[in-house]
C-alpha cells in the first residue's frame, strides 16, 4: 500500500470507511512520521499520541460494531493550531504566559471534530498569540519550512501548514486574523481557507482580534479543505457573532470545480494590488494562473478597490487595539505564569512582572500600540478612523462583487523568506499580509491554493468571495488545482534524518 502519509484526507476517510485500513494504522503512520521528521520541522508544540490512538480505536470500534461513519473524515488525523482550546490538553498560544495551562473545556470546533470522528494528533506551533507572519515569534522556537529548512513556513499558522507539507498530518486547523491561514499555505504549497467571518464558531479560539479572527481548514487539497470546512462550520449559540444560516455547499463546489469548467464565471483582478511590491516570480505565477483560469472559461475583469491601499494601516490599528484588551486577562492572577511574587510585592508589581516575563516582543509591541490607539483623546483619530476605513473597504468589496463573482490575487507578495531576514523590521514582516488583510477587514471568505513555483519555492493564488459565498472560492480553487501537477508529492525534499 502507498504510504498513508501521502494520501489525501478524502482518500483516507474512504479507505477507513471501507475497512481497507484502520484508523489506528492511519494514526500510527502519522505519529511515526512526526517522530521521524518533527525534530527537523518543529511543527508541533505538543503531540498527544495516547489521546490520538484512543480516538482512532473508538472509530475502529464503531465501525466494527456496524455503525455508519460519523463523517467522511472519521478516523482521519488532524493537527490543531495551539490557539484553539482543547480540554485537558496544553494550550499555550506559543506563549510562555500560558505554559502548562490545560483548559477545562473544548472549543466548539474541537467538539465538532470529535463528533465527526477526526483524530487529534496534537497542537501546532505558531507566532505567539497568532501575531506574526513567520512563526519566528513562537516562544518555543520557530517552525521550519519543509521545502527549505532555512526558510520560514509563514505565520502565524506556520506549524499547521508545515505539518501538512511535511506529511505529518493530512489536515490541520488554522486561524486567520490578517492572513495567518492563507500566507502559510501559500509559502508551503498547501491549501488554506479563511471562511466567512461568523461562518465558523470562535468559541474556544483564544482571541487576538475578535472582529477579525476566524478559524478555518488547512489541507493539501481543495476538496480536503472543503470536507474539514463542512465539519467545523455552522451556527453556534455560544458565539454571538456566529451567523445563523446554513453552511454554504463547499464540498459540492470543490467537486464541481475539479471538473475544470469555469464558463460563465467572472473573475476580478484588483487594480490596486500593483505588481511593484511583489517578487517577479510571484507576479509571473499569478499571471500564468489567471491565463489558466481564462482557458477554463472564466471571464477576467479588472476592478478597482481604491481603499485597499489603506487596509494595512487600518488593520494595524484595529487588531492591536482589540488585542490590547483581549490579552489583558493574562495577569498571573488566575492561571498560567506568575512571577515576581515576594512578601513585599504589590498586586500591580506581580501583574506587571508576569506580563513582562510572559509576553514576547511582538505581542508587547502590539499591546502598546493598541493601548495607545484606544487612549482618551486618540480614539477618534486612530481606532475610530480605522473603523471608517474598514467600512470603505467593505464597500469596495461590495461594489466589486456587483461586477464579478470572485476576486483573485497572489496570496502574499513573496515566497518563503530566510529565517531572521525580516524580524529586525516589523514593517517588512507586516507586508507579508498586504493582500490577505482586506478580506479580514471585510469579513468575506478567502482561500489560498498552490499556483506554481518561483525559484523552486511555492506560490499561492488567493481567491476572495462575498460573505457566505464560501462555495464560490472552493469552486475556483479546485478548478485551478485540477490543472496543476500536485506539488507536494514530487517536490518536497526528504526530511528523514535531516537536522537544521
Amino acid at each position, binding site marked *: 500500500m502507498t504510504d498513508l502519509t501521502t494520501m489525501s484526507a478524502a482518500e483516507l476517510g474512504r479507505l477507513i470507511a471501507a475497512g481497507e485500513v484502520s484508523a489506528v494504522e492511519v494514526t500510527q503512520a502519522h505519529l511515526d512520521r512526526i517522530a521521524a521528521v518533527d525534530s527537523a520541522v518543529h511543527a508541533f508544540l505538543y503531540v498527544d499520541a495516547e489521546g490520538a490512538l484512543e480516538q482512532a480505536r473508538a472509530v475502529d470500534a464503531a465501525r466494527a460494531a456496524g455503525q455508519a461513519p460519523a463523517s467522511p473524515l472519521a478516523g482521519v488525523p488532524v493537527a490543531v493550531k495551539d490557539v484553539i482550546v482543547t480540554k485537558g490538553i496544553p494550550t499555550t498560544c506559543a506563549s510562555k504566559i500560558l505554559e502548562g495551562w490545560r483548559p*477545562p*473545556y473544548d*472549543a466548539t470546533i474541537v467538539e465538532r471534530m470529535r463528533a465527526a470522528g477526526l483524530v487529534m494528533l496534537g497542537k501546532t506551533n505558531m507566532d505567539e498569540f497568532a501575531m506574526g507572519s513567520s512563526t519566528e515569534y513562537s516562544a518555543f522556537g520557530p517552525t521550519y519550512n519543509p521545502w527549505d529548512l532555512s526558510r520560514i513556513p509563514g505565520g502565524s499558522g506556520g506549524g499547521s501548514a508545515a505539518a501538512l507539507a511535511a506529511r505529518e498530518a493530512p489536515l490541520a486547523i488554522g486561524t486567520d486574523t490578517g492572513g495567518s491561514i492563507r500566507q502559510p499555505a501559500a509559502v508551503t504549497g498547501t491549501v488554506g481557507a479563511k471562511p466567512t467571518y461568523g461562518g465558523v464558531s470562535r468559541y474556544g479560539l483564544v482571541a487576538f482580534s*475578535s472582529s477579525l479572527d476566524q478559524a478555518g481548514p488547512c489541507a493539501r487539497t481543495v476538496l480536503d479543505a472543503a470536507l474539514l470546512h463542512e465539519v467545523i462550520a455552522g451556527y453556534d449559540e455560544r458565539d454571538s457573532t456566529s451567523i445563523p444560516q446554513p453552511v454554504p455547499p463547499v464540498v459540492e463546489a470543490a467537486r464541481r470545480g475539479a471538473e475544470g469548467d469555469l464558463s460563465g464565471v467572472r473573475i476580478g483582478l484588483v487594480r490596486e494590488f500593483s505588481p511593484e511590491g511583489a517578487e517577479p516570480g510571484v507576479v509571473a505565477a499569478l499571471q500564468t494562473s489567471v491565463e489558466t483560469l481564462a482557458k477554463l472559461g472564466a471571464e477576467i475583469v479588472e476592478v478597482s478597490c481604491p481603499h485597499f491601499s489603506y487596509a494595512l494601516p487600518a488593520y494595524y490599528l484595529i487588531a492591536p487595539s482589540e488585542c490590547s484588551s483581549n490579552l489583558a486577562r493574562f*495577569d498571573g492572577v488566575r492561571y498560567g505564569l506568575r512571577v515576581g511574587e515576594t512578601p513585599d510585592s504589590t498586586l*500591580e508589581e506581580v501583574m506587571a512582572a508576569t506580563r513582562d516575563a510572559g509576553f514576547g516582543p511582538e505581542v508587547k509591541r502590539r499591546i502598546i500600540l493598541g493601548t495607545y490607539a484606544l487612549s482618551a483623546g486618540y480614539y477618534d483619530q486612530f481606532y475610530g478612523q480605522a473603523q471608517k476605513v474598514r467600512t470603505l473597504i467593505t464597500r469596495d468589496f461590495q461594489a466589486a462583487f456587483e461586477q464579478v463573482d470572485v476576486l483573485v490575487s497572489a496570496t502574499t507578495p513573496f515566497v518563503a523568506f530566510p529565517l531572521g531576514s525580516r524580524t529586525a523590521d516589523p514593517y517588512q514582516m507586516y507586508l507579508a499580509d498586504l493582500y490577505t488583510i482586506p478580506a479580514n477587514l471585510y469579513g468575506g471568505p478567502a482561500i489560498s491554493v498552490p499556483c506554481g513555483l518561483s525559484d523552486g519555492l511555492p506560490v499561492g493564488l488567493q481567491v476572495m468571495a462575498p460573505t457566505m459565498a464560501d462555495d464560490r472560492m472552493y469552486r475556483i480553487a479546485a478548478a485551478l488545482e485540477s490543472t496543476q501537477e500536485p506539488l507536494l508529492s514530487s517536490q518536497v525534499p526528504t526530511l528523514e534524518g535531516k537536522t537544521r
Partner: protein
Amino acid sequence: MTTTTLSLEDVLTRYEPVLGLEVHVELGTRTKMFCGCPTTFGAEPNTQVCPVCLGLPGSLPVANRAAVEATIRIGLALNCQIATWCRFARKNYFYPDMPKNYQISQYDEPLCFDGWLDVEVEPGRTVRVGIERVHLEEDTGKTQHIGGATGRIHGATESLVDYNRAGIPLVEIVTKPITGTGALAPAVARAYVTTLRDVIRALGVSDVRMEQGSLRCDVNTSLHPVGATEWGTRTETKNVNSLRSVERAVRSEILRQAAVLDAGGQVIQETRHFHENTGETSPGRSKETATDYRYFPEPDLVPLAPDPAWVEKLRAELPEMPAVRRRRLAAAWKLSDADMQAIVNAGALDLIEATVAAGAAPEAARKWWLGELSRVANEQGVELSELPVTPTHVAELQTLVDSGRLNDRLARVVLEGVLAGEGTPEQVMAARGLEVVSDLGALEAAVDEAIAANADAAEKVRGGKVAAAGVLVGAVMKATRGQADAKKVRELILRKLGVEG
C-alpha cells in the same frame, strides 16, 4: 474639618448644591448576563462559575435576553427613550475581581436615555429628577482582603476573590444634574433612591436590597456660591448602603465642602467613601490619576437592536407605578397623604391591600397592621412582611370580631396564637377555647352570681351610682375568663338592677 459646627440651613443660604446619583441595580435574572451560570445569592465561593464568567481564554459572551428586557422595562418606567440600535463597550482596567481585566458595559450608546422620575420629597412637594441614561453591564467578582487593619487591599497579606457575582447583570441608572433643591438636597437624594427602588420592585426585575448589595448608590455632590453660573468641583461618594445613608452622605458632603470653601480652599475632584458609623466621608482614590478606561465597542457581541414592536408591547404591559397606585388606594380607602405615607413607611401597603382583598374593611386592615402587628415587628426587629401572619389571617380575625365571636381583647390573644404558629385564627380559637360567651342564660347566671357576691356594689348602683357597675362587670368577666362581651354584660347588670344606662 470634622469639628465643623455649620448647619445645613445656614450653609445653603450661601451655597447652591448640585447632585448627581448613579444607582446600580443587580437584576434578578435566573442566569448571568453573558453565560448560563445561576445567580443565587450566598452560594459557596466560586461554585457558580464557568469559562465565560471566569474570562478563560477562548470563551465568549452571549447577551441575556431577559436582562435586556428588564433594562428596557426600567427605561420605560423612567420615561426614557429606548435606543433602536446600540452596542456594548469594553471598559478596560486591571483589577483581580474582573476576570477579563475589562468590564463589558455600555459607553456612548446606552440602551435607554433621556427620561425622568417624579419624586415626592414630602407630602405635596414633588421634584422631577431627570434621567440621563440607563445602561446594562456585568457585575464584577468580590474581593476580600485579609490581614490588613482596614479590610482594604492596603496592608493585606492575602486577597481572596469570589467570582460568583462576576457576570451578574447590573443596570446603571444615572441622573441628570439635580439643581435648585436648596436645603432639601439630602431629602431629595433619599426620596429619589426610595422612589427608584419602589419602581424597580414594582417591575419585579430585582429584589433591590441595599443591605445585600443588589441596589448600590454613588452620590456626586458639588457646591457653588448662590448666584454663580459655574458649578463647583464635584466629589463622588461611594459605599452608601442604605436609604438613610444616602441622606446622611449628601448632608455630610455638603457640610464638608462648605467648610473647605469657607476657609478659602478648593474642593478636590475625588472618590470618597461613606462611613456608616461616623456618618462622614473620607477620601478614596483621586480622579486626577484615575485610569483611562479606553472604551471601545465590544467586538464579541452583536449590536442590540430592540424591535420597536417589542418595546411597545413591553410599554403596554408595564405594571401600575407605585405613586399612581398610592394615589388610587388613598382615594379608595379615604386616607390622607400623611396616613398613606405612614403605611408606606411601615412597609404595609402590599399587606393592607391584600388584607382588604381578603375581605377586611380598609380601616380595620390598617389598624391591625400599623397597630398590634407593627408593635410586634418592632419588638422582634423584623419587617412586617416577615411576621408569620398573612393578610388572610388578619382578614379572618377581623371577620370574627365583626361577627361578635371575638372581642378586641380575645382577638389579640388569638393573634398571639397565630404569630406563635398555632394555625389560623379559627384553629387557635378552637385549640385555646377562646370565644365570646353568647349564651344568654349562662351570662345571666354569672351576672346573678356577681350581684349576690358583691351586694355593696349592687346597692350603690341601685342608688344611682352607675360607675360602681364596673366592679360587677369585672367580676363577670373574671368568671367567664374574659370571654364575655363587656358591653353586653354591663347592659345586663344595669337592667337587672333596675337602672337604665
